């Protein structure tokens, strides 16, 4: 599914937001893919993603996991999923994956021109893309934009608007730091595509704007 797509928010908030997914194609190159997928995960984890996750172990980097345990549970059809907050790290991962020629598909989500530029830097030619055209229909039913910026970082919609509002309020009122808030919000996203760095930045911005309004 299109789960890393459809992240909502102002363009400038995606400068350091790069969800990463790799997987074999079922029935084409999935037989015996486990060691290759394991290697993809090792390479990605070596480059310090901001988050990483697994639906098999129901854990993500924010909750903490045992790297070896996660790698040992890799099966032929296991996807590798996480998020980077630094374009240079993604380029380094792509370069290494190209060099090792593992043959597993990889998708990077982000601002299209930026991702294309990163591909070229790694010596890759983008093959295809899934474009997000936006939200249609009864948009008046949606939570407010400030909340959507967070809830849409979990593509499976496991993060509730209610929890986001609670954390936003706690940070605005100084009862919690943006980083602490981001960590709580990252928890429901087992795939590990929730970007805590972006979340902390959004919480910080809201807190600062709130302080200015009060002055």
């Amino acid at each position, binding site marked *: 599914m299109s789960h890393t797509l459809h992240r909502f928010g102002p363009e400038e908030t995606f400068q350091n937001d790069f969800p990463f997914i790799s997987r*074999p194609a079922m029935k084409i190159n999935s037989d015996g893919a486990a060691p290759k997928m394991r290697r993809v995960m090792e390479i990605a984890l070596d480059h310090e993603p901001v988050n990483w996750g697994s639906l098999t172990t129901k854990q993500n980097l924010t909750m903490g996991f045992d790297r070896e345990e996660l790698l040992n549970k890799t099966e032929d059809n296991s996807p590798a999923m996480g998020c980077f907050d630094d374009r240079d790290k993604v380029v380094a991962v*792509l370069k290494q994956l*190209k060099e090792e*020629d593992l043959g597993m598909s990889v998708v990077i*989500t982000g601002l*299209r021109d930026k991702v294309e530029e990163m591909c070229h830097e790694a010596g890759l030619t*983008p093959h295809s*893309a899934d474009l997000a055209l936006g939200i249609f229909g009864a*948009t008046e039913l949606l939570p407010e934009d400030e909340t959507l910026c967070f809830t849409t970082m979990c593509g499976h919609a496991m993060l*509730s608007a209610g929890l986001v509002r609670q954390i936003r309020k706690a940070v605005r009122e100084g009862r919690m730091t943006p980083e602490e808030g981001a960590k709580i919000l990252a928890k429901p996203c087992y795939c590990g595509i929730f970007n805590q760095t972006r979340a902390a930045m959004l919480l910080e911005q809201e807190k600062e704007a709130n302080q200015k309004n009060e002055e």
Partner: protein
Amino acid sequence: MKVNQELCVGCGKCLPFCPQGAIHVENRKAYIDQDACVECGICVRQIECPRKAFYEPPEVNEWPRSVRKVFGDPTEKHQSTGVRGRGTEEVKTNDVTGRVKRGEIGFALEFGRPSIGTKVKDVEVVTIPLAERGIVFEPCNPLTSLLDTKTGIVHDDVREEKILSAIVEFAIPFERFEEIAGVVYEAAKHCTNTVFSWGLVVRYEEDGTIAAVPVLEKMGIHVPKNAKVNVGLGKPFCNE
């Protein structure tokens, strides 16, 4: 899901966590609105209920309620629709599968997303007009098994089931893009019960451009910059 009333102490700690806002407290007991619940499992897995009062009753896995879990809980693999999960591999492995080739374009209309959820029948706002135009829905997508693919009408037994989201997925020749994008754009005006997030799966041209972008701009549809890019590392590589 359900709350064991004997265990619940009505503390309300669980209230903010449900993505559908389906939990409420009345007379110091928590209740789950069974119509609103999409069986995503967050309450059972993640809510730190001091009494561990949430549980999955057997009817969650019985047809037709079981479709809620298929489309709502990403941690489970289900067989009730005959297909696993909520969607397909779409662009993720397109460099190997060649699902969408040059000269074609893929549509992924995810109903209920973001956050709102949808009744299965609400997809008819697009599936009926698309079926009238002969669109063939992606057979590997679990939603397709819930439709009469000739008419786009949702089967009676699952019409009223509320699910977290479901993707109307299909590919067409590029020549039909303007016509079919127009149908979807028009249908969106009649989508009054929920929302859908619209994704387009496209193949890069030899020169690195995307043919759909100028067509969308001509139609007045703004193309945001967010995209999911298949970087072309898959093997065997499909260069079509």
